[in-house]
């Protein structure tokens, strides 16, 4: 498709310009997080810090209960990832391999729940969580996000790629479905399961609305809610705010870089939109 040298150059220039626009806020965040406060709000602004204020990170870490926020987010996201992966793998296995009455209708019903938007479920779920005394608990944070139809869909597609003959042969040899799932499907679909787990982790790590509504105390706040609360308390210490933001973003970027090819494929096939 490329048309000669000038065409290639033009493509590069455009791509580079777009990449700069995309990456700049990230670089600005990191750069600002390392400036002393006076420099952070100076005009004209400096691109890179003149004096590198590494201690901003220590200050930010101590200025709010960030260790607690990180712990909470870690527990919540790990819980959601575990729940989503386990429930999706089981359901996807049934939809891909087992025969049972009402299978098609049930799958349609599952997919139809995608039509129910989050702003509908938010308020009733809050009322239910409160009535069950799950307000301000990990149970209340995790369970409402604990199943994902898109993950079931993604895994089912992946499982359907495993030859049906393999299943039939195993059954003839007396292998129970549960054992087939454990011994054959899980190892074969391990990359897919990892993507589902990672996407669920990222989604709940980045979630703001549900933890904002389902928790109220500092001891149960997640990083997103905590970061927002911190932003309302720091007044003009933007360098500290940017340091905190960098810390919150760092784990997700690390996870993304580690598995970016699989994540991008997973997202582009299911069309997940956060």
């Amino acid at each position, binding site marked *: 498709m490329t048309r000669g040298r000038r065409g290639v150059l033009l493509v590069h220039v455009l791509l580079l310009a777009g990449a700069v626009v995309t990456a700049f806020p990230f670089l600005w965040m990191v750069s600002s997080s390392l400036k002393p406060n006076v420099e952070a709000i100076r005009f*004209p602004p400096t691109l890179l810090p003149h004096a590198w204020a590494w201690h901003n990170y220590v200050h930010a870490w101590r200025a709010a209960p960030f260790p607690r926020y990180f712990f909470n987010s870690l527990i919540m996201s790990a819980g959601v990832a575990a729940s989503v992966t386990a429930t999706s793998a*089981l359901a996807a296995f049934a939809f891909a391999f087992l025969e049972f009455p009402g299978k098609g209708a049930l799958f349609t019903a599952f997919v139809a729940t995608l039509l*129910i938007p989050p702003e509908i*479920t938010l308020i009733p*779920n809050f009322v239910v969580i409160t009535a069950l005394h799950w307000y301000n608990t990990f149970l209340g944070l995790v369970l409402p996000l604990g199943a994902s139809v898109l993950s079931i869909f993604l895994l089912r597609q992946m499982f359907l790629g495993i030859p*049906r003959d393999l299943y039939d042969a195993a059954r003839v040899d007396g292998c129970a479905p549960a054992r087939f799932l454990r011994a054959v499907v899980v190892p074969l679909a391990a990359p897919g399961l990892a993507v589902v787990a990672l996407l669920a982790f990222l989604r709940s790590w980045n979630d703001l609305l549900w933890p904002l509504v389902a928790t109220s105390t500092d001891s149960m706040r997640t990083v997103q809610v905590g970061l927002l609360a911190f932003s309302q308390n720091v007044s003009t210490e933007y360098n500290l705010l940017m340091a905190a933001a960098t810390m919150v973003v760092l784990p997700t970027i690390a996870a993304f870089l580690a598995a970016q090819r699989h994540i991008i494929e997973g997202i582009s096939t299911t069309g997940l*939109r956060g």
Partner: protein
Amino acid sequence: MALPASRSTAAPSPPTAAEAPERPRLARARVAVPAGLRPPARRWTRALGAYAYVAPAGLLLLAFQVYPLFYGGYVSLFRWGLTRQAFLGIANYAQVLRDPEFWRSLLVTVYYVVGVVPAEIVLGFLVAVLLSQRVRGRAAYRLVYFLPYVTSMVALGLVWSWVFNANFGLANAVLRLLHLPPQRWLLEPRGVLALLRGGLSFWAGGPSLALVCVIVVTVWYYTGFHAVVYLAALAAIPMEIHEAARLDGARGWRLMRSITIPLVSPTTFFLAVIATIGAFQSFSIVYTLTGGGAAGGNAAEAGGPLGTTRVVTLFIFNTFYGEFRVGYAMAAALLLFVILLALTLLQLCLGSRRVHYLGGAG
């Protein structure tokens, strides 16, 4: 987690071919199982086993997706604060429909959706076309463009609200370097048209500058996602079609307009639907940009300045969480759901007529 061993309790008999679900007819004929011996019972235990696999996900979905839809409908019929109070019937709905704040938030939402969706799609397509060219460093570019999408909206929202900070922000620093008057950005309630021309009334001024900033950030956030989805669609176009068109003399823009754009139209359609729904439901990014501390506001005022960025989800959230009028907020949420559903159906009707599918495969 107790995995259901679907059949192990049912039959200690040696595994016969009759148990293999896919070829029972053939096998049964050969092994000659005595008629009426267990198969119905076994079929039921097997089905029960299968349901046990679906149950965990199914129950969670039932409890936290399906039930809320109905329970929300119930809640919306009451005056509901911390707990249920007086039964109101459809009075909540009637009141929402008479509430100027609700209609205003819908107008803001329409501005937002109209600003966001086409820009995301066009930019996403352009980036995808550029990325699909055979140039060095494609993988690295793709990575960078996709980065915002996996990152916290709160963190990025705070970065942007600092960029747009009226006193120390980068945006005003750039304007000053260009000898242009500084702007108040996210604190500017006046419409962009009014800013450009002056003298326009509040409503003729169009979306506020603050809302335009929110739109820009949203587009920035989602463009990479759209590009990645488009990239997959572009890769699926068979090379022969391009070759054939080029042999017929199609070049550049003509190739794009007559071949590429029609062939990715299913993806465009899909993205348009997804993006519209997503934009109607946007919360975190608007909330952070207009309510987060860096913009100078506070959470209770999210949707400022003067409510010009209060999209409908923010209106619902404020009535629900700020004012604790739970029944009222629920009625507004359900009305939004109905509007959105109607809009999506309309999109599906209009879109299906214009989309070109390749070889029926979709």
